């Protein structure tokens, strides 16, 4: 197996006065996808991952309120790009755990209207599977959005520090797809995050991993604290979730160092689950096996 490709794409002016500039965001996604797949047109890249008949879930992260959640303009821009390869807008679901969290993050819910769908697992008639999916240390009921409504998914996660796991990234984002994430926070969430990702409902469906680093919370996450949050205006994109998380982790360490904060390991919360995920064969977690492309639009 060759190296895993990770694109870190920066977009100057993507976030001005806390407002998203969708033009820049769109450009970032397009260029990032093209670089990831070595092609001139983002559509060629998306066509390698999705087909028009797909039902695609975009799993976002809205736990931390408006200031540190996936901005609606970002997820909707991504969803719109998917429609450009012929995916029906009604077959795209932007989702998270609860409708309340989505609303608090600025989303307008759309469960049954036309266009791109936006709703939480706690929507009546959706909910979690009644039966458990059991895999290694994982025994969880999955969101029916992930298990039934979509056949492919994108993890669009917020890149941030996490008080227990060390890092919230694209793999941990799927904690929001199960009914009992609180049960998997022992020992820095290791090996739980990796084992959850390995379940067939996630590993087989997740096609694209994106870390949203518009604002990066590099300390005291996962909630928002302005004094340790930095505007970075970037996305980290890969088809290898482990590699994306690994690069995200290194980026957080870099920001921490700049601010004179100790490495996560010293605070006993190194995201060891990323190493575990690599050992499990889920992706790459070392720079020798990752091709990192940095680009600014």
């Amino acid at each position, binding site marked *: 197996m060759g190296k895993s490709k990770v694109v870190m794409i920066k977009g100057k002016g993507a976030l001005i006065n806390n407002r998203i500039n969708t033009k820049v965001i769109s450009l970032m996604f397009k260029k990032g996808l093209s670089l990831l797949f070595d092609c001139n047109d983002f559509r060629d890249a998306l066509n390698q991952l999705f087909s028009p008949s797909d039902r695609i879930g975009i799993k976002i992260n809205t736990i931390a309120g408006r200031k540190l959640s996936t901005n609606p303009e970002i997820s909707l821009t991504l969803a719109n790009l998917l429609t450009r390869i012929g995916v029906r807008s009604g077959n795209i679901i932007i989702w998270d755990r609860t409708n309340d969290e989505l609303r608090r993050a600025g989303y307008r819910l759309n469960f049954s209207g036309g266009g791109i769908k936006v709703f939480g697992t706690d929507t009546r008639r959706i*909910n979690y*599977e*009644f039966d458990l999916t059991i895999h290694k240390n994982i025994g969880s009921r999955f969101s029916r959005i992930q298990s039934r409504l979509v056949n492919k998914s994108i993890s669009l996660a917020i890149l941030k520090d996490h*008080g227990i796991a060390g890092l919230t990234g694209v793999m941990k984002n799927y904690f929001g797809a199960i*009914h009992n994430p*609180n*049960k998997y926070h022992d020992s820095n969430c290791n090996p739980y995050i990796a084992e959850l990702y390995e379940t067939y409902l996630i590993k087989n469906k997740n096609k694209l991993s994106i870390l949203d680093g518009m604002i990066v919370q590099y300390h*005291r996450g996962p*909630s928002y604290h302005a004094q340790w949050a930095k505007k970075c205006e970037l996305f980290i994109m890969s088809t290898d979730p482990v590699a994306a998380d690994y690069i995200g982790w290194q980026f957080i360490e870099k920001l921490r160092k700049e601010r004179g904060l100790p490495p996560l390991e010293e605070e006993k919360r190194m995201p060891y689950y990323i190493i575990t995920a690599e050992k499990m064969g889920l992706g790459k977690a070392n720079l020798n096996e990752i091709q990192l492309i940095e680009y600014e639009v």
Partner: protein
Amino acid sequence: MGKISRRDFLKTVGGAGLVASTIPSSFLIDLYALTPTRKLSQVEAWFYKKLPDKEIKCELCPRYCQLGDRERGYCGARENRNGIYYTLVYGKVCAAHIDPIEKKPFFHFLPGTTAFSIATAGCNVNCKFCQNWQISQVRPEQVENFDLPPRDVVRYCLKYRCPTIAYTYTEPVIFYEYMYDTSVKASKKGIRNVVVTGAHINPEPMKKLTEVVDAIKIDLKAFSEEFYKEYVRGELKPVLDAIKIVKESGKWLEIVYLVIPTLNDSPEEIRKMSKWIIKEVGPDVPVHFSRFHPMYLIKNLPPTPVSTLERARNIALEEGINYVYIGNVPGHKGESTYCPSCKNVVIKRFAYQILKNNLRKGKCKFCGQPIPGIWS
């Protein structure tokens, strides 16, 4: 619908047959008249510390969850909102039932009476063999909840003539504030309070709890830290400490040990535990060895052979424990209470039913030996 409904709940923990026959039909009518609520409680939790940057540290149980704003503890029933920690399940009951007290099981506590039994969703451990995982291993918003504030619990208790309230089914530690307040209110009306718990709790809250309840049944899930780590996701030591605290408090204590084939059934482990019980809490604490049935995350093991339960019982008796029972094997002789002095049957049971009671004022009617317990 992924939520567990009342009907499912009654099937799950209410059981059928013997148990169902004890429920007054008017109670079911009352239960069905309650409207499910989607609102969780926002009552400030006890036993937590505020930390800088809106973080909190929960000190109710040995997990000591340290959480940022909007985060929930391991139990899923407590949430940090803007630096204040809240219980989300105060008065939000996901299970209410009238059970024989023997079902808890309490065998030395008002035999033949009923307990108004309640639970809220969530648990602070994650036993791989949990029998009620549909309500314990979930977040409160994932089940149907009903508003049942302490005063209503007391009202129902009086209406259905239940002498006792049992906090049970899930893990009462996680609805501590609700249990505590209800106990205080109930005691004033002469209603007893019993707790059915895994006792994964810190000493201070445990001590405070013993001040307001009458009896505590503790599930001792094994006698090794390894087992607790692997199969319970908790620790043994705090449970042993809690057992000692209950004993010291003078409140009635019974211990249940669910015997799981190959995992915690070795004679050595049972002997070690029996010796510890004798040494730390004495020979008069009843010990129940219960039969395991494959459930939740352990479905690859068979139900416990009756011979294994009998072996465990014999070991405990050999070590000198006076009241050793076999649970979940209806009709077994180990369900009955025997006088340690004259060996006659003092209380004859079949499943949760009392067939004969040979106690007279707390003493064996044959030889006059006092039998410890709360009998009236």
